[in-house]
């Protein structure tokens, strides 16, 4: 990861320097959004499903403690070892300890945004453990030493040519090759060798079921299964909000997840893990890392309902035109922008502003998170806590003073229009961000109020 993180606006300026690439990024993700629209339109009860999913999660958020304890008991009875981690550091240390105990120095890992959030790969690498990501997209960005730019499509910011170049460098494929079939085959051979030789495999968790003590992992490539089934030790890492009360609730989420994510009826592999196979060890690491703090914030708690489908990213017109890396956070896009300030307000104070509050995210969200309202609320919290730039605070105070006084407002309006009419060069310059790519509006001689007073009062 690069050390110097740009704020969202500056990173977007960089991203937008290559406009054809922005167009391609936008169109690719819009294609996914369109696929999602077609898939959900085939379900007449779609809105009721969303409501059900939302209410089950509300129940979960209100009964978090009991459900987690119930899950722990049942998982233990199934022969799964349960670990609790208060933060990312504990999560990393627990996993490192398990790898050491297994006498391994290498691990294969399927997709888990939680491990990204906790920077597990960096941590293990520093401790001499080699980690190979087995999701194809994850593997591509891993070779490039980049974080994923999207939670479902981690390498969506890269073109076929970029991938060909990366594979040429790391897997020895032919230079200039862009044929997806050829490149995928190369990756498959490379990963097959990995699966066969790793004693420890880590997976994420999509849903953990309190009632049964089992968990479900959804992938389209079957890579989680390959890793977990071939390894002696299976570690599953989960944020505690992944819990659902009963197995019967799974149907609701499995129907929503894949359709919202990619427009598929269901993910290709929805694998249920309930107990280790004979001779295997199964561990689950349940992580807090700020989640209980978010649970304690009434305005933001239901961000924990998220099932990580990424529909909000695909639909977000800002995300599509700024790229995932501009959010400088493991989870990008609208949902990331309401989760990240909880982790670090100072570092992520820019993210709730990376939105036009168009509201598309909230309405596409399968669990009905009020994402854009939370973005608005985070803005209030962050500015009140003093994370706003001083210049902005000063200008907002001035603005408030003008707008609360009808007399000052009219004076400022007159002066403003005058300046625009008679000395446009003062605003039509490169220091005015509006003018960079847009013309200024043409100011009229009289305001509406002037007109009204002149015409109506007669």
């Amino acid at each position, binding site marked *: 990861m690069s050390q110097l993180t740009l704020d969202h606006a500056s990173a977007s300026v960089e991203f937008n320097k290559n406009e054809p690439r922005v167009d391609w990024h936008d169109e690719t993700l819009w294609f996914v959004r369109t696929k999602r*629209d077609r898939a959900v339109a085939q379900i007449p009860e779609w809105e009721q499903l969303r409501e059900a999913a939302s209410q089950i999660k509300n129940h979960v958020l209100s009964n978090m403690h009991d459900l987690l304890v119930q899950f722990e008991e049942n998982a233990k009875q199934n022969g799964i070892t349960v670990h609790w981690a208060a933060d990312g550091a504990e999560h990393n240390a627990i996993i490192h300890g398990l790898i050491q105990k297994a006498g391994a120095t290498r691990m294969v890992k399927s997709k888990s945004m939680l491990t990204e959030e906790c920077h597990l790969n960096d941590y293990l690498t520093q401790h001499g453990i080699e980690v190979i990501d087995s999701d194809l997209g994850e593997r591509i960005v891993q070779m490039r030493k980049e974080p994923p730019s999207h939670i479902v499509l981690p390498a969506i910011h890269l073109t076929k040519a970029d991938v060909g170049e990366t594979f040429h460098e790391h897997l020895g494929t032919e230079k200039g090759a862009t044929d997806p079939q050829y490149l995928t085959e190369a990756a498959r051979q490379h990963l097959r060798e990995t699966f066969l030789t790793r004693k420890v495999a880590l997976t994420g968790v999509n849903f953990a079921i309190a009632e049964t003590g089992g968990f479900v992992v959804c992938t389209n490539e079957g890579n989680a299964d390959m890793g977990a089934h071939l390894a002696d030790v299976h570690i599953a890492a989960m944020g505690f909000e992944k819990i659902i009360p009963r197995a019967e609730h799974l149907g609701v989420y499995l129907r929503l997840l894949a359709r919202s994510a990619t427009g598929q009826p269901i993910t290709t592999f929805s694998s249920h893990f309930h107990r280790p196979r004979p001779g295997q060890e199964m561990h689950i690491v349940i992580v807090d890392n700020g989640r209980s703090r978010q649970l304690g914030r009434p305005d933001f708690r239901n961000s924990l309902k998220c099932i990580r489908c990424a529909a909000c990213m695909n639909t977000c017109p800002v995300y599509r035109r700024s790229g995932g890396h501009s959010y400088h956070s493991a989870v990008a896009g609208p949902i990331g922008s309401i989760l990240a300030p909880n982790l670090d307000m100072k570092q992520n104070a820019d993210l709730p502003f990376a939105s036009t509050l168009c509201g598309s995210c909230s309405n596409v969200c399968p669990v009905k998170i009020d994402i854009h309202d939370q973005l608005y609320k985070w803005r209030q919290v962050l500015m009140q806590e003093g994370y706003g730039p001083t210049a902005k605070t000063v200008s*907002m105070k001035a603005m408030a003073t003008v707008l609360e006084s009808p007399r000052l407002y009219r004076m400022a309006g007159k002066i403003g229009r005058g300046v625009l009419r008679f000395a446009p060069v003062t605003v039509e310059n490169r220091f005015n961000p509006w003018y960079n790519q847009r013309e200024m509006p043409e100011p009229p001689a009289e305001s509406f109020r002037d007109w009204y007073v002149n015409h109506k009062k007669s």
Partner: protein
Amino acid sequence: MKVGLFIPCYIDQFYPQVAIATLKLLEKVGCDVEYPLQQTCCGQPMANSGYAHLTGGCNDNFVSNFAGYDYIVSPSGSCTLHIKHHLHATNETAATQIRSRIYELTEFLTDVVKVSTLEATFPYRVGLHQSCHGQRGLHLAQMSELVAPPFSKPVQLLNLVKDLELIQLDRRDECCGFGGTFCVTEEAVSAKMGKDRVADHLRHGVHYITGVDVSCLMHMEGILKRANSNVQVKHIAEILTATL
């Protein structure tokens, strides 16, 4: 039916013709309209920038201008939405009443006045930009994210205009990227969104782009002008009052 006309600050200053059209339209459909002279702004620029705590004075001023009207009507979805959701004031009883009585122009015409005919003619190809705050916030039209029957209050009204040809966009309700202060703080993304939005209209050969929010139109107008396009923007009130 006494209607208080709320004209957002930038319309007052830069687009008086939109306010005039709105006033004429409301009078034409039989409303008794008054424009309170001491109004300024709804406070949204501060609130959306995270400074809702500085909007007290603005809110009190709004309440003292608009208390007591049967309806408050505004040619702006986004300012209307802001008032509906966020207006609180020293006189909270009056603020509560205002929140429930404020309407965006097109929803007022379709839902309250129930307009079924208009004497307007506009013989051009027109693209409608569904501004997000009006569409998704006030639910002026069905949004493409939901599985629900389609409807659109602005379209319902535009269909009453003689000779107007409404075109279909490829992305029927994508945001234009204006977003209040977003248009300057996130200039790169904002301008790119605006360019893409305009391109969708141009692809379909429009003569005019219309909408219920002047802010979005101002943004797209700036982009059209920079590109030396002869396509123009017009607020929906201007089209609904257009005659040959």
